């Protein structure tokens, strides 16, 4: 098969969990990477090494360990900046996850400042967003009297841009959209939407939680009109640990926003009467940060960079095409979202006629095949297609064609088990 990562079997050996077996001595077929990815040994080792040899708080510890820990933490920031092609390392803010990064933006825009959202203003999202890119904006608009609007979806799961002129107007203050949908797999034309949004002076926020793991991102090389003003992703989907996420924001935006959480490290001077704040990135990093997690994330992004994000993207594309082909051969399967692998990420949500997604997932699990069932935190997108829930298979850089075969076979087994096979 063309496009697969070279030496895929060697790559798989980097991920110790892929060796394990499940109940009934079945090998693990992990197809839930859009939910969270597995971790290579180098990430695990980097975190253990930090805890074993360099553990200390950052920035405030005046000793050798403190210096080592601070250096490791800040080196992780450099790695993130390189991974994203960020114009400046200071524009990289560590958060707890993608959700927190989005909340940081939506929350701080409620307060006085150049980017304050208020009555009469509009925030624009899309119907395919993860709840994490809907609810924070609902909170913002509800709290400020602004209005939340959204792009609808076409029947084939792409953004319906037919009413773009009435949606992006001079009232639009923020446009926040996902680069790659975690449910439909759709890859959105972020550049085109950013260009339009910038014409009216709106802030453009991109949820890259699904994009960062599977496609190369180079912010600096994007023309400024097309470059988002902020982009978020989460560590655990990019072969890194949980507990850490990233907000990249242009200096202009981050300087214009007031602080989010108050506490240690985000200040310049504190007096009882009031305080002044540190510059970015520290302004948005109150309290002891997730140090070991940052170290792990740094190792993860170096791992991905060593493999080459172009190669990872090609692999995802090949596997996704193969999986779509396999699914097309299973009677009763309806794939939601784009039907072919073009402009599509590696998450495939589908229905299997006559078998509820929970039951599909259960039968698959009994055969060692791990998928997700439910609404995948994208209930509005499910409602748009008139379905309550779906089963989702999501591949990643370590997924093999043989695993896709095992998945397709397991779907046949589910049909047989629930008596819908002809």
């Amino acid at each position: 098969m063309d496009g697969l990562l070279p030496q895929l079997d060697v790559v798989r050996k980097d991920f110790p969990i892929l060796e394990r077996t499940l109940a009934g001595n079945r090998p693990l077929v992990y197809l839930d990477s859009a939910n969270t990815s597995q971790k290579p040994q180098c990430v695990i080792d980097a975190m253990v090494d930090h805890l074993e040899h360099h553990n200390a708080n950052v920035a405030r510890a005046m000793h050798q360990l403190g210096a080592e820990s601070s250096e490791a933490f800040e080196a992780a920031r450099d790695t993130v900046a390189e991974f994203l092609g960020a114009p400046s390392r200071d524009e990289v803010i560590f958060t707890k996850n993608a959700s927190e990064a989005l909340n940081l933006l939506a929350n701080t825009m409620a307060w006085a400042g150049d980017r304050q959202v208020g009555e009469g203003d509009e925030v624009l999202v899309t119907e395919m967003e993860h709840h994490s890119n809907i609810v924070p904006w609902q909170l913002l608009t509800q709290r400020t009297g602004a209005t939340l609007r959204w792009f609808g979806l076409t029947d084939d799961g792409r953004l319906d841009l037919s009413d773009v002129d009435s949606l992006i107007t001079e009232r639009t203050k923020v446009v926040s959209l996902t680069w790659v949908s975690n449910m439909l797999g759709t890859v959105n034309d972020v550049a085109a939407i950013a260009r339009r949004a910038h014409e009216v002076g709106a802030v453009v926020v991109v949820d890259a939680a699904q994009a960062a793991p599977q496609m190369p991102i180079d912010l600096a090389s994007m023309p400024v009109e097309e470059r988002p003003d902020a982009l978020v992703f989460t560590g655990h989907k990019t072969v890194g640990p949980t507990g850490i996420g990233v907000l990249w924001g242009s200096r202009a935006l981050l300087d214009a926003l007031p602080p989010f959480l108050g506490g240690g490290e985000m200040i310049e001077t504190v007096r009882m009467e009031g305080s002044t704040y540190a510059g970015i990135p520290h302004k948005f990093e109150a309290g002891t940060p997730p140090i070991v997690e940052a170290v792990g994330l740094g190792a993860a992004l170096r791992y991905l960079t060593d493999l080459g994000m172009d190669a990872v993207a090609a692999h995802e594309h090949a596997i996704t095409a193969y999986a779509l082909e396999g699914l097309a051969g299973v009677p009763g399967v309806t794939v939601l979202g784009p039907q072919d692998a073009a402009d599509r990420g590696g998450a495939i949500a589908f229905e299997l006629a006559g078998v509820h997604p929970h039951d599909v997932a259960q039968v698959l699990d009994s055969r060692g095949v791990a998928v997700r069932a439910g609404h995948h935190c994208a209930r509005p997108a499910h409602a748009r297609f008139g379905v309550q829930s779906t089963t989702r298979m999501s591949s990643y850089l370590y997924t093999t064609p043989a695993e896709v075969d095992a998945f397709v076979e397991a779907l046949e087994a589910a049909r047989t088990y629930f008596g819908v096979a002809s």
Partner: protein
Amino acid sequence: MTAGGTGQDLDALYQEIILDHYKNPLHAGLREPYEAEVHHVNPTCGDEVTLRVHVSPGEDGDVVADVSYDAVGCSISQASTSVMSDLLIGKPVAEALTVHEEFLALMQGKGTVEPDEDVLEDGVAFAGVAKFPARIKCALLSWMAWKDAVSSASTTQSNGGDA
């Protein structure tokens, strides 16, 4: 059985009784009269049930005269709703509440509770569900909805019927 077969565990979960109720659910549909209607969802998966309870006075206190529902969900949640309504309809509220307790204990017993068939009848088929933590919420969805509904039903007026 297909190539590779399906694990024994699966059969422990999907008892014949459960699959029967799933395919032919009892007491489905929303009916009048009723004193309370509730809507419960399982936020992690989106399973939903709208459930109505009709209670009427009996010799020894209120009786569960009807449980009607409209539900979307997996085999476990659908079958559980069917089994529950069949089990509770016609029982004095006090007794129905003890059946509820018994079912709850079974689900939360991590597979160590021996179900009492005299009390739970078809409900014993759900014993295997207790060993699948992810599915316990499915089995409990409508039971929780019923508990919620019946507690307000006893104190509210009937909608559109004898009270």
